[in-house]
């Protein structure tokens, strides 16, 4: 069933009784051409692009909980293409282009809002680093504008320019950066994949990966064994556990990242803003809540909840940067489990097991990557070759020293 404004009106006139389920609830079949483990954003988009780009529709997505139950529904919804290292630049650029057509592609309004993202800087050195980044973005074909202090003040007059510990020197504006409605991305891909014949199987936990003679043959699940010659692991913070089922040890550590939302407020912040002297980034959702976050809690964890020191740090950063938000009240905080890699960049690659593929290491930048990650993972699974915009996301790059370390913090998983 196609969604449109006209359909909303006609259904409304007839009591909204005609809406049908967004996706089927199929029982797992005994065999598929390909299995995607993980029904989050990346897994669902992988399944969608397998069907759409490669005609592979005999595909199952196995999700241990409900669709979109992981980080796709626990992030701060930021969409951007402002990386500067070759390898990352082209990938996120590709992703942003997919975002820009996503509503029409999926026939689902994911509310992608290109309201502009501003990274603030607070020293000459930071400005130089952001200039390098901005130039890389332009060279890639994306957009960037370097703002001086007055330029920032014109856009964000409510920041504290006068009485603050780390004065604002300027900002790098990425006009095409913005936000999207996170859950809608999962649901949009799920509905579109389902429509192309993909089986989305919820409450189906993978308990084992069957490997014979170095080749994957299928998976064991809480709903029985399922055979497949191609299996993709797309499970973010749970990557280590699932990969271990196939005897693999990954360069991944799982960490908590907290995020926060306030009670609804009338429009007051029109951009995505990121502070440069302490992790803090903020935007306002269409519903009116201020959505913001900071850095990891920094210790390995699967608890999906955080502790107070980072909460307080984030709030203190908010108060020094934009003290006008002081009287907004935090309504809810939550934590996601981040698959942190040793250089802060992802992995989309084959594994030493034939037919077993992995897509992980999204650190805390996975949301914006959802379209391109699915696109490239589907390409890899369908063709056996890395997609050209993901060719540096190799599993062995840590061993070889071909790193993609945007933060420059080195092989310590929690620092990216």
């Amino acid at each position, binding site marked *: 069933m196609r969604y449109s404004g006209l359909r909303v009106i006609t259904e409304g006139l007839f009591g*909204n009784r005609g809406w*049908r389920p967004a996706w089927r609830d199929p029982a797992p079949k005994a065999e598929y051409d390909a299995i995607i483990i993980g029904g989050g954003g990346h897994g669902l988009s992988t399944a969608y692009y397998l069907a759409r780009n490669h005609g592979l529709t005999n595909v199952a997505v196995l999700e241990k909980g409900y669709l979109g139950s992981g980080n796709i529904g626990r992030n701060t919804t930021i969409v951007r293409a402002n990386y500067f290292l070759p390898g990352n630049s082209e990938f996120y650029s590709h992703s942003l282009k997919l975002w820009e057509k996503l509503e029409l592609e999926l026939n689902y309004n994911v509310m992608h809002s290109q309201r502009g993202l501003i990274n603030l800087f607070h020293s000459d050195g930071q400005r130089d680093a952001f200039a390098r980044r901005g130039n890389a973005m332009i060279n890639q074909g994306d957009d960037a504008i370097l703002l001086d202090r007055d330029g920032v003040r014109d856009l964000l007059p409510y920041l504290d320019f006068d009485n603050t510990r780390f004065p604002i020197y300027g900002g790098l504006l990425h006009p095409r950066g913005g936000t999207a409605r996170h859950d809608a991305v999962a649901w949009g891909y799920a509905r579109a994949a389902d429509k192309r014949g993909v089986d989305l199987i919820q409450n189906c936990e993978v308990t084992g990966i069957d490997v014979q003679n170095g080749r994957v043959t299928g998976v064991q699940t809480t709903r029985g064994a399922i055979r497949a010659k191609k299996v993709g692991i797309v499970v973010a913070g749970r990557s280590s556990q699932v990969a271990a089922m196939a005897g693999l040890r990954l360069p991944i550590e799982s960490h908590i990242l907290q995020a926060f939302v306030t009670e609804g407020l009338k429009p007051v912040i029109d951009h995505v803003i990121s502070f440069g002297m302490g992790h803090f980034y903020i935007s306002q959702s269409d519903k009116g809540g201020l959505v913001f976050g900071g850095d990891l809690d920094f210790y390995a964890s699967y608890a999906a909840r955080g502790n107070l020191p980072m909460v307080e740090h984030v709030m203190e950063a908010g108060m020094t940067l934009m*003290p*006008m938000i002081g009287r907004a009240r935090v309504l809810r905080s939550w934590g996601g489990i981040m698959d942190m890699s040793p250089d802060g960049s992802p992995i989309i690659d084959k594994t030493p097991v034939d037919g077993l593929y992995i897509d992980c290491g999204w650190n805390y930048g996975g949301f914006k990557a959802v379209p391109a990650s699915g696109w490239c993972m589907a390409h890899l699974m369908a063709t056996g070759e890395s997609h050209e915009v993901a060719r540096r996301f190799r599993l062995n790059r840590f061993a070889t020293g071909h790193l993609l370390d945007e933060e420059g913090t080195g092989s310590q998983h929690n620092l990216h």
Partner: protein
Amino acid sequence: MRIDGKGRIDRTRPVTFTFDGKAYPAYRGDTLASALIANDVRLVGRSFKYHRPRGILTAGSEEPNALVEIVGPANVTPNTRATVQEVFEGLVARSQNRWPSLGLDLMAVNDLAAPFFSAGFYYKTFMWPRRFWEGLYEPMIRRAAGLGRLSGRHDEGVYEKAWAHCDLLVIGSGPAGLMAALAAGRAGADVILADEGAEPGGRLLSDGDAPAWLGEVLAELESLPNVRVMTRTTVTGAYDDGTFGALERVGLHRRPRPNLPRECFWRIVARRSILAAGALERPIAFQNNDRPGIMMAGALSAYLNRYGVVPGKAITLFANNDGARQTARGLMAAGLTVSAIIDSREDAPDEPGTTVHKGAVVIDAKGRHGLTEITVRKGAGEFRIATDCLGLSGGWNPSVHLTCHLNGRPRWSDDLAAFVPSEGAVPGMVAAGAANGSFSTHGCLAAGLAAAAQSLAALGMTVPEVALPAAEDAPYRLSPLWAVPGRKRAWLDFANDVTVKDVALSAQEGYRSVEHMKRYTTQGMAPDQGKNSNVAALAVLADATGRGIAETGTTTFRPPYTPVSIAAMGAGGRAEGFAPQRFLTSDQASRDRGAPMIEAGLWYRPGYFPKPGETTWRQACDREVVMVRSSVGVTDVSTLGKIDIQGKDAGRFLDLVYTNTFSTLPVGRARYGLMLREDGHVLDDGTTARLAEDHWLMTTTTAAAGLVMRHLDFVQQAFCAGWDVRFISVTEAWAQFAVAGPVARDLIASALGHTPGLPFMGCMDVTIQGVAGRLFRISFSGEEGYEIAVPTRFGEALFRDLTARAETMGGGLYGMEALNVLRIEKGFITHAEIHGRTTAFDIGMDKMISPKKDCIGKAAAARPGMTGPEREQLVGLKPLTDSALTAGAHLFAQGADLTRENSSGYVTSVGYSPTLGSFLALGFLRNGRARQGETIRLVDRLRGVDVLCLVTDPVFHDPTGEKLRA
């Protein structure tokens, strides 16, 4: 309407407040909600989506409707619960989310379009044309959404954060909490009793007239030095290992006073805790159940008993349990009319003094701005009752929220038709009383005592004698009723305008998991966080999907329990409080000379020292560079990290942490060292001097001082704990000044009274004007350079002394800007170059990795990707024409398209060199060392710079180092 003789308000202290510009009388002790009720104001807010007129639903922090803006002298606080805000003289409140006024809200047109605003409608439309989203649809949606308004002005209010530690934290001071605190207090435990309310007592203050024993218990608690009663304090979050967050409303209930915090965010650390937070009454969904005048039955009791007000003259009640009878009796005892009780249970008991309609339900309510009439269905018949106030009771939900904060899932109790806490969900926490599903007062008292006994046993303390006061012990009888079937909208989540239909539609569309339903409908995501509606919504979902409630499960409650202001949790961060400030001993002297002070990490360092007539920083910087190159300059370098290292294994230790060898360094000499991270990238650089056989002084960069200390601690404790090596930071103990330039030696000689005769990279103890200090001959400028260090107390004096001497020699002070140009001219690197991605190979120092020994980072630096022509290598760049350069520019081969693929490097540092009369840059260029002599295009598209540059060696000035060694 105010009722004589009832309530705990102070009738001797009348106050006046305003709401939407109109002044009203009230008493000290009123909340804004009770004061509005006393003045017969029924309409206080508008709903989120449909802008429906709304009144007051509850008497607590769970209020979904009565959210207002509080207007203070300096700023406005949106989304304040009228049910929590206490009234004081001069309080100004106004309604929110309405335009132009509360009575006439044009956005209420949404209510008429409701059929098209079904759950998730926005996911299905507004997609075309694409560019209309940011331009039209989204701004429209944003303007309509949201509740209160931030003023946009800085919040200059006073806030604080504090720590409290105790043996036992008791959360809630109702009957269970009081008994627990009393028992633990008598046992000698350090107790914190925290309660959200303005006075302790909880439901004892609301259910009826407070019992006499309450005062005695409170007096005893007050008298116990080990018991701390914290009122107006909401425990908002449970965190790991007995840590709790709590918000105290310190000054919000009174006229602002200078320095008195508005709020305090507490971190309470407790060995054990008792959750006695009570229970929340739940509404029943039926058509138009959101009319102003419809209120929770328990809230009616609270308003009557605590504040002496009632919101109507002809009161009706709609319940599925016996609990509402207490409300009815209380009202009637106070002389008020209870027109009828509509009880959904066929076997409901009679109630003397009023009519009970058994097996009946309310199916509709009339009165857009205030309830006038309800329609009741009993069997096949329907009838109407005129009423201006309907009390609802759908049963009670234990306040399990805190038990969920550590991922615990509450347990469904069929008996109570409610979720109850799972035992052990928060380690060390025991739930007691209504929070644990024990609803009678006697049950709460007994449970509080039992919880105290359990907690005291765990603390190794003895339970004292505590006699339980006599109290009612009525059984809790209820027949679940969540939603009355009807054709029109029946509200579940009042605040977010989620109706029974929305939940059913969610299930119909396949959003059947409880999380999908929540996210699709926004159920429970409003300011009340679903406190009033989650369980009913689950029940409706369970019904729609044909599952039981237990199977459907519940969404998770996450901190905070009630919303907490960013200012409270971020107290201290405002303005300069965000991070400590570190000041040099020369700080005042530099400011006296007009130097702008620049943040360098936590330090402040002078940018440059302007002279009369200089109008730009560049003029000052150029002058200072020329001064250093031609005579002598003085600058404060005390921010560099200084680590004192001692022990007979210190040399060996240095060999391990540096790439190059130190153990062979003679006493009295210093050496430049390169330090790698274990992953093979450059961590830091600096000089380390050997002061004596077993005594060394390491210097780090300003930026990496803390990082290096932590790294050294790790290496030492993890890999060589048994070695004879000890180190400690002495950064703060020494003030250190660089003296550089062709006549630096003369200046040092004049200051010391003799010429030191120190070779390049030498170090020695000196006495300077009677003070024991250290002298190093090292240079970051390329000129003959010294660094002289004295104990910090003498720093300012020495700085002024050196400055005066320099000035008599034609020299003077130089700042960070000149320092930067000087080091660029010499090709010296800073963290602009060693930015965490560079290897020793990249900066041309791979030869410094000694092949003769192991060092941290050596193995990883040998990975194939860490060296080779594909890597970007440090080069110098000099424009072919007289052009400005910018750091952050990228490098391209001439003729290449400006694409990512063709970018072959970037610029890290630039400066104008008055020495060479040209801009100079350092940067990284792919295979750069082999490309010296090439012409390359430097392009900064952000700033429109496009300059051809010569690729050179990074050392522009005095490449052979003659001046250094002079």
